[in-house]
């Protein structure tokens, strides 16, 4: 029983990472109807930036915040410079550009910081203030920080007028323009937020998986799985889906398939959900008008 609880709680910690990435993916999907395949590499790059700041002597949480700001700005710039011009281009063009970004970020990180594995510090104390062998201190910290961030984001979208405007712009850009919302600005903001969320995910997972340019691809895959399971049209669903995937990954790995086929597991989940319940747990099926 202990093992089951341990795996579940540990799964919630990795699930927090997947939930963050899933949220970032869904936010951008809602805004532009495309999947940001480069989300993982952007998060990885942000994490490297944070690593660099820490290596230069900055205290962790200070570097953390600066990294968030830089990522936010970076996300906005990418939207404005790279994606705004191809807004109306066909799907393949978007996919190609996302892939190009993946390449560029991956290679730039390798160029600037090389491909050797680096240690990324965990900001959480080495021991928990209470006795337990059910969950480690870092894992608990990750869940707390992630939930806190998700709470802030929820509050932003629900209770601020900019948040409302962003939701409106994503749902109905034409009507949004007609009430004076600059859809362009909202898109840029959305990307900035997604980049920020990704950066948090990267910085939270790096202490566990070690920092190197290829660290995020598998994690992104689980993020996508979380988004698909939760429902691509539901940010809340994506978060739930992400946590779920974290727990499932551990339980399946422990009891069913062993730890070596985790990526295949994600593949099967994605294909199965897209085939049999494409709206996921909480999403809506989008009906295509002929």
């Amino acid at each position, binding site marked *: 029983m202990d093992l089951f609880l341990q795996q579940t709680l540990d799964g919630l910690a990795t699930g927090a990472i997947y939930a963050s990435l899933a949220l970032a993916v869904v936010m951008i999907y809602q805004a532009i109807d495309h999947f940001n395949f480069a989300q993982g590499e952007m998060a990885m790059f942000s994490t490297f930036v944070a690593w660099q700041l820490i290596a230069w002597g900055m205290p962790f949480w200070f570097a953390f915040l600066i990294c968030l700001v830089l990522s936010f700005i970076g996300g906005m710039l990418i939207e404005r410079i790279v994606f705004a011009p191809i807004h109306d281009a066909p799907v393949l063009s978007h996919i190609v550009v996302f892939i190009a970004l993946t390449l560029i970020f991956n290679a730039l990180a390798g160029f600037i910081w090389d491909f050797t594995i680096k240690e990324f510090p965990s900001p959480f104390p080495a021991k928990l203030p209470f006795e337990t062998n059910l969950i480690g201190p870092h894992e608990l910290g990750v869940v707390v920080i992630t939930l806190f961030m998700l709470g802030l984001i929820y509050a932003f979208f629900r209770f601020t*007028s900019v948040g*409302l*405007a962003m*939701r*409106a712009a994503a*749902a*109905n850009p*034409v*009507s*949004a*323009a*007609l*009430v*004076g*919302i*600059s859809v362009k600005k909202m898109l840029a903001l959305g990307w900035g937020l997604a980049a920020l969320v990704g950066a948090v995910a990267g910085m939270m997972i790096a202490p566990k998986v070690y920092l190197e340019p290829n660290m995020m691809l598998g994690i992104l895959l689980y993020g996508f799985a979380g988004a698909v399971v939760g429902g691509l049209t539901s940010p809340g669903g994506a978060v739930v889906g992400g946590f779920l995937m974290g727990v499932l990954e551990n339980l399946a790995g422990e009891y069913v398939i062993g730890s070596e086929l985790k990526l295949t597991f994600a593949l099967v989940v994605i294909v199965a959900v897209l085939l049999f319940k494409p709206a996921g747990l909480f999403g809506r099926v989008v009906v295509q008008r002929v």
Partner: protein
Amino acid sequence: MALLAVNNLSAFYGPIQALKGISFSMEEGSVTTILGANGAGKTTTLRAICGMVRTEGSISYLGNEISGKPTEQTVASGVAHVPEGRGTFTRVTTEENLLLGSYTRRDKQAMKEDLETVYTYFPRLKERRDQQAGTLSGGEQQMLAVGRALMLRPKLMLLDEPSFGLAPLIVEELFGILKRINEQQKVSMLLVEQNATLALNLADHAYLLETGTVVISGTSDEIAADETVRRSYLGY
């Protein structure tokens, strides 16, 4: 100075020319209606004013040239557009829809007052203020669209076929409210309608569009009395 002056306006959807150099103007406080069959260019005219299609020619609002300006800017200067099909934000609440209408404004106190004013005009919206807007009936969504436009405190309200798909009783109620809004809130209205009788009743001026050009113009009384209009558009 006219509130709105359109001069030799042409509008294009890609290579297709939908408006062929039309001209008209509106005074402050007036209700003007644009009539015509499907495809005549009525909706295009409203879209052109809001910068939603490519245009040539001049559109002057309060003396300023607004052709070519981005939609958000035109809206922020007091032009509210109630679009074809209502354009409701279906997944947020009724009240959030209304609040979005005042997005460009900063005067919080006045915004609160205007919200109450809208609820006074449309008590049914107040009943459903926390409901998801997509669950409202067609008539209620149309009222919501007008209410949302009103939240801008606009000088000019553009209305695109507000009677479309609504039951006659609801339409009567709506148009009664529009008249009150025009008189009490001093909101000028440019109304595009297929239902000519209704429109001519509300408006004081009318223009008839046929395939992108103005063929008849005058006061609504003049137009209503016109033989050709009566035969083709009023049905008697």
